[in-house]
């Protein structure tokens, strides 16, 4: 498929089913999706439609029951756990609704964590963390613990942490869900700035206004992508993901 070569992300017939006792929930049904580098995508849809599940698949936090996932032309679903860890470390940044900061670590230490896990030397780490703190306006909060920070500051720490290794894909699951409107706007502008620098941005949101800012909008219902609309024509070539 020539699509796959040009795509950053290609999903083919992705399936994910959860079993809870006797009941069976199909969170993803035969999902096909192609995403080009530097796209800005909003994923919307009712609660339980499979948005988070889709994002977790793309972020390699979860594994599909069927289908293939090519990241930069490479099938990542069949990789060994350690190879997947390397891909998560180098190519993917994840931002959560509830921030997921480690409470006992300072803002700086939280941001530093991916560098530590990747084995980056200490001097290099200090330099990059300092720069990130500056970029996100957190320099004077560097040594504060997460519970000493506001919601917006926490999410900025989380974004700094997700992007400190310059990933190709930035995944955000309701990043403004726990923030007020003004703070949410601020966070979204940060994400958009990163997208403008070339990072592919995929945001799951319930907020219509926020979703409308993306150049491409996916709508999910009951585990399927039911609509895939692009505001701007020049990315439509890549936006051929069919609805299942």
């Amino acid at each position, binding site marked *: 498929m020539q699509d796959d070569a040009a795509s950053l992300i290609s999903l083919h017939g992705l399936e994910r089913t959860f079993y809870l006792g006797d009941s069976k929930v199909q969170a993803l049904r035969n999902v096909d999706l192609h995403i080009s580098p530097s796209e800005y995508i909003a994923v919307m849809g009712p609660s339980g439609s499979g948005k988070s599940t889709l994002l*977790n698949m793309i*972020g*390699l*936090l*979860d*594994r599909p029951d069927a289908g293939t996932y090519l990241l930069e032309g490479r099938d990542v679903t069949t990789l060994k*756990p*350690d190879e997947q*860890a*390397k891909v*998560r*470390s*180098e190519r993917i940044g*994840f931002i959560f609704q509830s921030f*997921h900061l*480690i*409470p*006992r*670590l300072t803002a700086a230490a939280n941001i530093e*964590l*991916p560098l*530590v*896990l*990747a*084995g980056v030397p*200490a001097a290099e780490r200090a330099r990059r963390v300092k720069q990130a703190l500056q970029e996100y306006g957190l320099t004077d909060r560097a040594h504060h613990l997460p519970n000493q920070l506001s919601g917006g500051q926490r999410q900025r720490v989380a974004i700094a*942490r997700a992007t400190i*290794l310059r990933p190709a894909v930035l995944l955000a699951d309701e990043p403004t869900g726990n923030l007020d409107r003004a703070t949410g706007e601020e966070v979204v502008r940060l994400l958009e700035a990163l997208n403008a620098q070339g990072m592919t941005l995929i945001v799951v949101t319930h907020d219509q206004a926020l979703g409308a800012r993306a150049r491409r909008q996916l709508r999910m219902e009951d585990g399927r992508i039911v609509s895939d609309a692009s505001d701007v024509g020049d990315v439509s070539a890549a936006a051929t993901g069919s609805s299942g």
Partner: protein
Amino acid sequence: MKALDNLRYAAGSATGHLLRTGLLMLAMSIGVAAVVILTALGDGARRYVIEEFSAIGTNLVIVLPGRSETGGLNPANLITSTPRDLTVDDANSLLRVPGVKRIAPLIIGTTEVNAGGKLREAMMIGTNEDFMHVRQMKLSLGRFLTRDNIGHGSAEVVLGALIREELFGTANPLGKTVRVGDRRLRVVGVLSQGGRGMGMTTDELLIIPVATAQAMLDSNTLFRILVEARSREQIEEVKSGVLKQITQRHDGEEDVTVITQDAVLETFDKILNVLTLGVAGIAAISLAVAGILVMNVMLVSVTQRTAEIGLLKALGATADSVRQLFITEAVLLSVTGGMLGTALGYAGAALLRQIYPAFPAYPPVWAVLAGLGTAIVSGLVFGVMPARRAAELDPITALSKR
């Protein structure tokens, strides 16, 4: 992930969860300290008894009148059942037995002692000049008994430290006369204070020549003969030689019992080893309880931290780095807890020794190692096992666990 970062993260995690770390330290230190203190008590009791017995003297073979039940059936016993007296001549004949270095006959009685109008009861021992060496006694004043070649007994007495103090106070008693029973004896020496052995102090003793004592008590038979072998190796040889010699002198009748101090010590050692084992059993139970406590704290804490493991994996940590983080933390906690417990245990044992100076409450090394080992192993096993399992989970499964 680098080793130093690993260590820093693990240490941060340990100090960052003070309640959990505190509980763990508590469980571990109580367990280990209990083992150390209890075994110190048990082993201390064993040492105490052995030291008491060793104070009697070394390489001792003891002859007592009367046949022990374990002596076997001897036809001579059927004819006459009254044992012959154990005499001073019997004792002196033992000097000819190969391997014998010294002998000390022993006759014992209670009597009254009286000087300058002061009167008291005292235990009197009749013996010879070698008794001092056999029993390893020390003098604070004067000399001990002298050799009594004729066997008539001289009118001499050596006083125990307390008797001297009660009769003479701080005045020099040497050369003074005391009345013992119906005799007037000259004081020739005073024993050092604090002599011990068989739970009996020498401070309240009177020591006089054996012939003198026999005359006073109007008795020919000895209470004991103490025989000192030349070396530890010769004890058995001396024992059988002594038995043979006395049997021969008693017309072939085996009417004495010969015991060695070694045999007595061995028996006590066995009993006390059982005691120490019993105490160790109690200690093991306390350790098992501590182990279960450690297990629960560890299990709960790892479960609580499954989300953290998920996050680390989402941030790109491999299952291996996650495992290493948790192993490092478990090692840190276990070793610190174990050390703390050991220190606490040693402090407790030291306190015991402070309170009862005579009681050598030192914990045996094996017990300390066993205590430490069990604590560290249980901490490791129950810290690492659940973390390993969590590290295998898909990141999202771990992350969404609360």
